[in-house]
């Protein structure tokens, strides 16, 4: 399963990065969101770290929808979904492959969102950037595990694309809240031990939705139109 998942992730990343397909829209949407939010403060005024972290994760959440619509759309253009389902690889390999490629793509987008948020929202990062990267990567995995699971709902008919947003956002709330709290802690330079419960929330979210996806994905990603 891991080899097939890596093959799918490699193929998706090659398609996404070769023509920057899927990434440009995501980055532009996120930057637009950060810029618009920055207009809500007076010139020279600093946004609170909590608000900056919230804007960052909001941009990420919207970007995630575009990323997974793009990734699953790749399999629909010429019916490759049928080929994936008829291959000997388990359906979960598709989920894992998409989650991995989504994880990388989302992280690439965040590498643009982060400096933009710092610049436009007037932040000074007091904490360790490495801790910040670890927090972002950990929260991202939960977002991508869930995004890849629910992305399967958007395949087949265009009318289903809206389903992804409708179902995804309410389920993302715990991860987003935890991400906001943890990132705010990193920006303000406090240790993560001060927000241990939120760290636990991220770990639990990642574990629950990884396990749920492994069980549920074959029922969502089928040959039905």
């Amino acid at each position, binding site marked *: 399963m891991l080899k097939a998942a890596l093959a799918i992730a490699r193929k998706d990343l*090659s*398609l996404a990065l070769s023509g920057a397909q899927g990434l440009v829209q995501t980055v532009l949407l996120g930057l637009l969101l950060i810029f618009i939010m920055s207009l809500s403060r007076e010139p020279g005024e600093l946004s609170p770290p909590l608000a900056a972290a919230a804007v960052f994760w909001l941009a990420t959440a919207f970007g995630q929808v575009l990323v997974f619509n793009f990734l699953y759309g790749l399999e629909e253009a*010429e019916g*490759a979904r049928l080929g994936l389902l008829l*291959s000997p690889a388990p359906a979960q390999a598709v989920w894992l492959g998409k989650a991995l490629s989504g994880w990388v793509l989302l992280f690439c987008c965040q590498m643009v969102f982060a400096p933009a948020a710092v610049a436009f929202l007037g932040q000074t990062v007091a904490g360790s950037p490495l801790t910040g990267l670890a927090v972002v990567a950990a929260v991202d995995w939960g977002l991508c595990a869930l995004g890849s699971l629910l992305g399967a709902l958007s395949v087949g008919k265009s009318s289903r694309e809206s389903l992804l947003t409708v179902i995804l956002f309410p389920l993302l709330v715990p991860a987003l809240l935890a991400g906001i709290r943890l990132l705010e802690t990193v920006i303000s330079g406090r240790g993560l031990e001060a927000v241990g419960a939120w760290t636990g929330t991220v770990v639990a979210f990642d574990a629950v939705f990884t396990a749920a996806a492994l069980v549920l994905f074959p029922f969502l990603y089928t040959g039905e139109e």
Partner: protein
Amino acid sequence: MAQALVRLRRVSRFYGERAVLKNIDLELAPAQVTLVVGPNGAGKSTLLRLVAGLLPPSEGEVETELPPGGIGYLGHKTLIYPKLTARANLAFWQSMFGQPRDDAAVTAVLSRVGLAGFADEEAGVFSRGMSQRLSLARVFLTAPRLLLLDEPASGLDPASAVWLRREIRAVADAGASVAWVSHNIAADLAACDRVVRLDGHRVAYDGPAAGFDAAALAGEGVC
């Protein structure tokens, strides 16, 4: 008759209240080309999807002797990635079928389908005929024991259609079973061993191709 690769036992399929197939009994044996014919809406594509396990039957059972990955599919859509080169497409499907990366095998199969000179071009720029050849290369590379074809010749020029017919026959002669949905019965019948005709959601004919009267169907708009 050799051991069947797939058996359908009293299989029915409904979409909501609408029946598409009712009480279908069918066996697909190795080294045999089965032509599946019938008017539009007769359930031919649904039948292939049931055989492939892509759709669950509403009633009845689909039994198969095939291991995972033992079924190949070629239809209206080519199952290729337009933004990848022909070579990268085939290398991807090699990985998905657990095969080691083998550039020589990819080159050989591209030569077989006449695309050796286009190996490093994006599949998206290919004509319909070239795309279908690439799709067939994918099938050859994964060597399925059961090949399902859903009007694979639609959009092909006459010369490409003749070539496709010859390749399909070669796949069956090598031991695979082929189930082939076609509307071009008069032309395709000669390459087949057996005909299954669907009509009124049921199997109306299941017998040797030699005894099948294709001309009689012309008036029904089937061919």
